[in-house]
């Protein structure tokens, strides 16, 4: 009986673990066998967790409250699984040249498993272990281009920075434990009193600020973003896509949950700080994205800007804001991964990744150019695409919490960001080039990804029931 509860509650995690074990055994017995089985197997495992999280989310806690899951956690895990499916599909062109295709899938699965445990954590130790499992293998993924020195540089920078931010988080956790005497999230929530009468409140506040800083590192909000650009540029394109969408998404989900569930009493403070951080993040991301000629680096900085917009929703400290963050994350996944898929396949087939190379792309590869157009429009937030609705809800949540200046500021930044998104569109459609990217066939997996992301971008905006559903899943401050 006990065993059955365990299996049914941890079904998504156990599915991933089983996938990991099967891949390991496959690696042992079929070393060097070059067939497509492993890739499709991983994709089907991930699709399994995706469907499981949407249609069969488990509800409840186990291991004495260390593991807590529900429909919100299920939905978040599904979003992350879906993104990983896209990345594996469009990364296959690049993986074909690698000897370590299987290890790539293994590492992706273990990273995802770590994120699942991080999202379901009911205890700071569990959260920390999940976080480590979600970052350590990423460093190995970042060095995947063994013959490029920039790739190893990216790996080293990633591991040093994540070690540093983990150290901050751990220090914060130890101070929080010192101040409250517990590491379980629900108990922590009730241990925090404000305004506190005892000396423990200082420890708690100090611990909270360290935890906050650690999170800010993970989502690369300004002023903790300095590692992002180099890592994103050096890492292979699919890994960069993973870092900028999946990793950030997971960290952000947990960030919101911890802020709203555990530290609601500090909401005045963290709402202000998050709002300021969001404003800074937008400006800095915009300023840097404007100057980039390399499409990969450009997408990296634009993803920093998008985090700035997401922080507006976080700062609103309301149920509406929480739902908007979830909704925007899903849309951002479709748009950013669509853009990355195009950049990745062009880089793999032709080795070109600067803006001037993209001139006249529409003449030679109309479908790729159109897909990139839709993705960029959605990232910029132009009305018929879903990106517009995502940003609308984020700003709406900010406005309904009374942060009018922040919302106005965010709107101005949206206008600024239009400039550099449209610059890419202009290069593809208006400019001509003597040496355009030749026509090529991008292959079935990439076509699937592009079709899905374009459909998602167009349909999600009109499918309004989804936002209501997200609102019913999420929670504001208690």
């Amino acid at each position, binding site marked *: 009986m006990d065993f059955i509860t365990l299996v049914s509650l941890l079904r998504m995690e156990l599915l991933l*673990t089983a996938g*990991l074990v099967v891949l390991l055994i496959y690696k042992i017995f079929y070393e060097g066998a070059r067939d497509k089985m492993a890739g499709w197997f991983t994709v089907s495992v991930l699709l399994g967790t995706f469907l499981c999280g949407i249609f069969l989310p488990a509800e409840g806690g*186990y*291991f*004495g409250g*260390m*593991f807590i899951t529900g429909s919100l956690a299920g939905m978040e895990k599904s979003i992350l699984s879906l993104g990983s499916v896209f990345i594996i599909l469009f990364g296959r062109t690049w993986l074909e040249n690698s*000897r*370590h295709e299987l*290890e790539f899938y*293994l*590492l992706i699965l*273990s*990273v995802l*498993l*770590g994120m699942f*445990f991080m999202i379901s954590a009911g*205890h700071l*130790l*569990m959260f920390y*272990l*999940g976080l*480590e*499992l979600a970052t*350590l*293998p990423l*460093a*190995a*993924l970042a*060095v995947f281009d*063994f013959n490029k020195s920039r790739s190893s540089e990216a*790996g080293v920078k990633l591991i040093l920075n994540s070690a540093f931010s983990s150290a901050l988080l751990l220090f914060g956790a130890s101070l929080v434990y010192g101040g409250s005497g517990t590491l379980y999230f629900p108990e922590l929530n009730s241990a925090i009193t404000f305004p506190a009468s005892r000396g423990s409140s200082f420890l708690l506040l100090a611990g909270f600020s360290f935890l906050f800083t650690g999170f800010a590192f993970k989502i690369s909000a300004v002023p903790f973003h300095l590692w992002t650009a180099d890592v994103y540029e050096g890492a292979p394109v699919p890994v960069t896509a993973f870092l900028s969408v999946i990793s950030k998404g997971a960290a952000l989900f947990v960030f919101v949950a911890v802020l709203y569930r555990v530290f609601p009493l500090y909401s005045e403070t963290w709402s202000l700080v998050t709002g300021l951080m969001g404003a800074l993040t937008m400006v800095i991301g915009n300023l840097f994205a404007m100057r980039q000629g390399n499409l990969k680096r450009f997408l990296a900085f634009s993803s920093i800007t998008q985090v700035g917009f997401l922080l507006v929703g976080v700062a609103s400290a309301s149920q509406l804001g929480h739902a908007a963050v979830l909704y925007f994350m899903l849309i951002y996944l479709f748009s950013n991964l669509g853009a990355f898929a195009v950049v990745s396949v062009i880089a793999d087939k032709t080795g070109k990744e600067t803006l001037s190379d993209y001139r006249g792309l529409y003449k030679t590869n109309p479908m790729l150019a159109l897909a990139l157009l839709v993705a960029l429009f959605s990232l910029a937030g132009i009305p018929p695409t879903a990106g517009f609705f995502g940003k609308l809800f984020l700003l709406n949540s900010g406005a309904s919490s009374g942060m009018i200046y922040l919302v106005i500021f965010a709107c101005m930044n949206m206008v600024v960001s239009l400039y550099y998104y449209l610059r890419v569109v202009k290069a593809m459609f208006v400019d001509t080039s003597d040496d355009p990217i030749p026509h090529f066939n991008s292959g079935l997996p990439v076509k699937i990804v592009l079709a899905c992301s374009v459909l998602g971008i167009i349909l999600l905006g009109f499918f309004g029931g989804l936002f209501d559903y997200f609102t019913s899943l999420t929670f504001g401050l208690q």
Partner: protein
Amino acid sequence: MNPITEYTFYALSFLSILSGLMVIFSRNPVHSVLYLVLTFFTIAGHFLLMSAHFLAAVHVIVYSGAIMVLFLYVIMMLNLNKQPEGWSNFLQGMFWVFPSGLLLITLVGVLRAGSDMMTGAGKNIGTVENLGRVLFNDFLLPFEISSILFLAGMVGAVMVGKKES
């Protein structure tokens, strides 16, 4: 406290302070490392006296076994065991003041709060049996997840470290 425990405690303390001092005052880095290993062993002895068996074993295995051997290899491979210019150089800069000051503050704090701590913990809290119980009851899930963490780390390390042929 029975007298044997007490004498063992004093002997161990004397040894650990002595070897700790020798770590600093040895001119040869290899000797320093060897004294540090001795210090770790005496500290493990202290853990045993406090009936923290598991901690003692881990201390010997991890610190003396793994970390210090690594230090020794690094020093030997980098060929650092030349005669240094003397430790007076080290003391001339004022770098040591800040960490030493921090340590002093911590020590004073611990000594002032020490009387509370002595009565606080249960007698057998550190035994292997109790630790196992906690690990496999309250912390079962984190324990299992750390195995996957090691697995993923191993896959990554082997993949990066393996020679391309």
